[in-house]
């Protein structure tokens, strides 16, 4: 705590005294390395540069940030932490507890972050009452994407309940279309799983089971039903789904080989890149059921030496949450701005749905963190759940066994 107070004082001193003198510098560790993602980060770098900053890029791709986290641990242990790191969910608080994160409250307060961010998202950016990370975007996870022509040809509407989804899938299967395009990688299995938990159990159940890890909820009949639905959906997936990358699954929807895909809104970028139009060529809707599952990307600032680095952190935090970057970045990335006061005129129909739902669910308390994308739980817990989910989906495990294993795995993960 002492160390923390020291950091606060010294950063304040930086802002008060030397921010004019010190040239802002930042070494930024992130895993957005290709195509649209890289361009989106480049927007930030340009803004940073035009404000007099020097950006040093430290990209490490792979495994949804696994490799980057490996590099981060090595860097922190060697006392050579990067200035800013792409970090999200409870991992922010975990790193904070190790005493290595810098406080950026003065920027957040000066910029009035609390007024423009939805409360539950702001919560992820706070560590023991201070601001410790800056949100970049909001990805919605519980999307279902569909090929418009395939649905029209088979006289199918976007499903609003899981029963409707199953009925549609049976119909499609009879017509020789793969109902669900899916990639058999653990995180993709988990993505479908959490959408089903939310859809069948409702937001309250989701909160109890996958956020609070309530053992009763984990072993409840509802959870058995969830696994039953997963088993049913396993039948709607083609034989070769194992190990398939998510974007190849998206391509299957695009070329009409498959009808639906359940995937976060980065899938939209794939459709757009292939020249498909939302609402015409492909359809987007939230997965059956209420609620909204979000994945918020954010940057945390690490404790570093030197006024120029601290100035860099302040500037970076400020720019990331500023309306201009929030708009430009998210247009590129397929997500929506984390702040609620950005005009959405330039965004497409899917993004508008997403933003509207975020507003209503935020008010109704069903705006919830995605467990599959590391927003709801710490790594060892979410990993333990994913192990069971993916083992169940890829074998003939019964739902009752799966529920039992789920409870055991969670208990064994602390």
């Amino acid at each position: 705590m002492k160390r923390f107070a020291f950091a606060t004082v010294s950063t304040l001193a930086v802002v008060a005294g030397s921010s004019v003198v010190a040239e802002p510098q930042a070494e930024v560790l992130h895993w957005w390395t290709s195509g649209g993602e890289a361009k989106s980060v480049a927007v930030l770098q340009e803004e940073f540069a035009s404000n007099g900053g020097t950006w040093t890029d430290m990209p490490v791709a792979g495994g949804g940030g696994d490799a980057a986290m490996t590099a981060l641990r090595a860097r922190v242990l060697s006392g050579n932490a990067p200035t800013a790191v792409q970090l999200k969910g409870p991992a922010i608080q975990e790193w904070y507890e190790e005493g290595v994160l810098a406080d950026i409250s003065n920027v957040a307060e000066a910029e009035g972050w609390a007024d423009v961010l939805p409360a539950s998202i702001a919560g992820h950016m706070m560590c023991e009452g201070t601001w410790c990370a800056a949100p970049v975007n909001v990805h919605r996870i519980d999307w279902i994407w569909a090929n418009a022509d395939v649905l029209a040809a088979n006289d199918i509407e976007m499903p609003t309940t899981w029963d409707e989804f199953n009925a549609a899938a049976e119909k499609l299967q009879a017509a020789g279309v793969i109902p669900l395009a899916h990639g058999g990688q653990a995180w993709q299995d988990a993505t479908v799983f959490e959408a089903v938990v939310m859809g069948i159990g409702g937001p309250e159940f989701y909160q109890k089971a996958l956020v609070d890890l309530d053992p009763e909820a984990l072993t409840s009949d509802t959870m058995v039903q969830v696994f039953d639905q997963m088993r049913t959906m396993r039948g709607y997936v083609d034989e070769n789904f194992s190990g398939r990358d998510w974007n190849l699954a998206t391509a299957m929807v695009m070329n009409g080989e498959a009808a639906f895909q359940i995937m976060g809104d980065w899938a939209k970028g794939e459709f757009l890149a292939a020249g498909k139009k939302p609402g015409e060529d492909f359809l987007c809707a939230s997965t059956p059921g209420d609620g909204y599952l979000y994945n918020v990307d954010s940057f945390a600032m690490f404790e570093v030496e030197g006024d120029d680095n601290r100035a860099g952190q302040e500037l970076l935090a400020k720019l990331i949450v500023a309306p201009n970057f929030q708009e430009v970045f998210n247009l590129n990335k397929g997500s929506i701005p984390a702040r609620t006061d950005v005009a959405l005129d330039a965004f497409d129909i899917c993004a508008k749905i997403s933003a509207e739902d975020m507003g209503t669910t935020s008010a109704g308390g069903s705006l919830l963190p995605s467990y599959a994308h590391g927003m709801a739980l710490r790594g060892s817990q979410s990993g333990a759940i994913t192990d069971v989910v993916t083992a169940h989906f890829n074998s003939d495990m019964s739902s009752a066994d799966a529920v039992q294993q789920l409870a055991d795995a969670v208990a064994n993960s602390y």
Partner: protein
Amino acid sequence: MTDLSMPQTQTRSQSATGKIALRWLLYVLLGLFALYYLMPLFVMLTTSLKSLEEIRTGSLISLPREVSFDAWKTAWSGACTGIQCEGLRPYFWNSVLIAVPAVFLSTLIGALNGYVVAQWRFKGANIIFSLMLFGCFIPFQVVLLPMARLLGMMGIAGTIPGLIFVHVIYGLGFTTLFFRNYYVTIPAELTKAARVDGAGFLRIFWSIFLPLSLPIIVVTVIWQFTQIWNDFLFGVSFSQAGTQPVTVALNNIVNSTTGVKEYNVDMAAAIIAGLPTLLVYVVAGKYFIRGLTAGSVKG
């Protein structure tokens, strides 16, 4: 030499046609295995020459309809590895800066160690050698975190000298093994005679052993160069912006999670990143077998 083909002509039981058939069978067998080994390279090469459109629509294992080298150009100098879109080029240079000194140092130290262990045995030398050999087997994931701490203390975290240091340390086991097994086959009388003539430790190494060592140096250099050039785990953990090796850049190009995949660029980048090691094997492959023959495998 196991010269078995010649006496076969003397074997009465085998007719001439049978022999030719056998010969053909041999070549067919060798050819089939060659296909197995070449298959992945074939897929990579053809994919790298196709357009993205063709990859999306066509079969993955087929010859390109139209050959295009655009993907190669992009991979070398235009692909985005983060916000910089300079391709593999800058990282390639980092890898050279890491691999060359690390290979040189680990080979040199390995040669000296092997020389001591094989020819200047003192009490405990064998125990030291076996302790070093065991080091070959330590899984690298185990050493990442404590190594990071030590590199930080030594002040070389995130630098190219730091990476060289790591590679030299974990290469020592194998290089020492190679040289030791080679030098063990050189008669101890040679060293003794030279000592009688008044030559010292370094003098004997320099003028007698080193000139004899070319085959085993080739083996060691090939082995070490392959290991270090292809390393990803150390490269990603102990580098920082500006010192990342080519494997990390390749991974950045190939392994994006939420971007659009350009498979032709991925494959071209993969081949470019593998070219130096491929070249070493093709050019020095002959000496590799010779070096192994010369003693390193005699155990």
